[in-house]
C-alpha cells in the first residue's frame, strides 16, 4: 500500500467540523424534545384510549417502524412541498426525525405503561383524581423510570441515525464531511475523523444519560 495518510487538510476545516457536530447535536436534541411528549400522549392513547384511536396509533407505529428512515426523510422533504408545505432542509430533517422517533418511543413508553398495575389506576380514581392527573402522577411518573434506559439508547440511535439527513443537504456532521472530501480528496481521512467524532458523541451521551439516570431516580426511590 503506497498511500500516505495526511490528516492536515482535514483538520484545517475544524470550524466546519465543529459547526456540523453542533448541528448534529442540535437536531437530535430538538427532535427528542418535540418527539417525547407526543410519544407519551400517543402511548397513553395506545394503552387506554378508545379502540379506533388505539388502532390508528398502532397503524402509525407499524408503518414507520417497517420502512427505512431514509424513505421517510425523502417523503417529508420531496413530497410535502407538493402538498403545500415548503420547508428548509433542517426543518424537514427535524420533522422526519420526530416522525421516526415518536413511533419507536410510543412502543417503549407503552411497555412501561403496561408494567403499571391496573389497581393503582383504580386506586387513583377512588381518590377522586382526574384521568390526566392519574396519568401524570401515578402512571407516567413510574413508567418513565422503567423505560428510561430504553429511551436513552433510542436517543443515541437517533444521534447516529441523524447522519442520514445529509442526504437532503442538511448541513450536519456527515454533510460537512462530504463537503470537506470534495475540496481535499482525503476521503478516508475525512470519514475517519468524522467517525471518531460520532463515536465520542455517542459514548459521551451514553455516559451523561447514565449519570442522569443515577442521580435523577435515586431520590424517587
Amino acid at each position: 500500500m503506497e498511500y500516505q495518510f495526511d490528516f492536515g487538510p482535514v483538520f484545517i476545516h475544524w470550524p466546519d467540523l465543529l459547526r456540523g457536530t453542533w448541528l448534529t447535536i442540535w437536531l437530535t436534541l430538538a427532535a427528542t424534545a418535540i418527539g417525547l411528549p407526543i410519544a407519551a400522549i400517543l402511548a397513553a392513547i395506545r394503552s387506554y384510549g378508545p379502540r379506533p384511536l388505539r388502532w390508528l396509533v398502532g397503524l402509525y407505529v407499524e408503518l414507520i417502524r417497517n420502512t427505512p428512515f431514509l424513505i421517510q426523510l425523502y417523503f417529508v422533504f420531496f413530497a410535502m412541498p407538493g402538498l403545500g408545505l415548503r420547508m428548509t432542509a433542517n426543518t424537514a430533517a427535524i420533522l422526519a426525525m420526530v416522525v421516526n422517533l415518536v413511533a419507536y418511543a410510543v412502543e417503549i413508553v407503552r411497555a412501561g405503561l403496561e408494567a403499571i398495575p391496573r389497581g393503582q389506576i383504580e386506586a387513583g380514581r377512588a381518590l377522586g383524581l382526574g384521568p390526566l392527573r392519574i396519568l401524570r402522577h401515578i402512571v407516567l411518573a413510574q413508567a418513565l423510570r422503567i423505560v428510561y434506559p430504553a429511551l436513552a439508547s433510542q436517543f443515541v440511535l437517533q444521534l447516529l441515525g441523524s447522519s442520514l439527513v445529509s442526504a437532503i443537504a442538511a448541513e450536519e456532521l456527515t454533510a460537512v464531511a462530504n463537503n470537506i472530501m470534495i475540496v481535499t480528496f482525503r476521503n478516508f481521512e475525512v470519514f475517519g475523523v468524522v467517525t471518531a467524532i460520532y463515536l465520542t458523541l455517542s459514548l459521551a451521551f451514553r455516559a451523561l444519560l447514565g449519570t442522569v439516570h443515577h442521580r435523577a431516580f435515586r431520590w424517587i426511590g
Partner: protein
Amino acid sequence: MLRDFGPNELLYLITAARWTVVLSLLAFAGGGLLGLVIALLRVSPWKPLRLLMIGYIQVMQGTPALMQLFMVYYGIGLFGIRPDPWVSAAYAFTVSSSAFFAEIWRGCIEAIPRGQWESARSLGLSFPLILRLVVLPQAFRIMIAPTIGYAVQIIKGTSLASLIGFTELARAGQVINTITFEPARVFGCVALIYFVLCWPLSYLSQRLETRIARSRGESVSLG
C-alpha cells in the same frame, strides 16, 4: 422530459427491490456468522478476547452505519482497488450487523442461569462443550424472535447503500422520482414495498416473543 408514474415505473421499483432482498440476505448470513463468533468469544473464559469483543461492539454500535459504509467504500480505494458498491455494501453491512447480532445473542446466552454453567463445569465439561450441550440448545429458543426482529433492521438499513450508488429500492425510487417528479406517489410506493418486506417479519417476531414469554409465565407486554 417528464414521464408519468405508471405500471412500468412501478415494475422498475419492484425489480430493484430484488437487490434489496439479495443484499439483506448477504448481510444477514455474513453478519450472523461473524456475530455468532463474536458473541461466543464475548462470553468466553478468556479475558483479553472478551475485552477485544466488547471494544469491537462498542465501536460498531457507537458509530453511524453510514460512516462505516463510507469508510469501507473509500477505504478500499487506498489499496488501489476501484471502489465497488456491491462489495462495499455487503462487507459494511456484514460488519455492522455482526456487532448487533453479537449483542442480541450474548443477552440470550446470559439469560441461561449461571448455576447451569457452574454445574456443567463441575462435571468437567470444557467451554465449547458447555456451549454446545448445555447453553446453546436452551438459548436458541429465545434467540429466534429477536433475530427475526433484527432482520427488519437489516432490510431497512440496506437503503443506505443507495448513498454510495448501489441501485437497490431506495435509489430506484430516487431515479424514478427524478424522471416523473411525483415524489408522493413514488416514495409512497417505495415505502409500501419496504413495508411488505418488513412487516411480516416484525409480526412473526412479536408473535414468537409473546409465545415464549407466556410459556415462561411472564406478564406479557409487546415490545
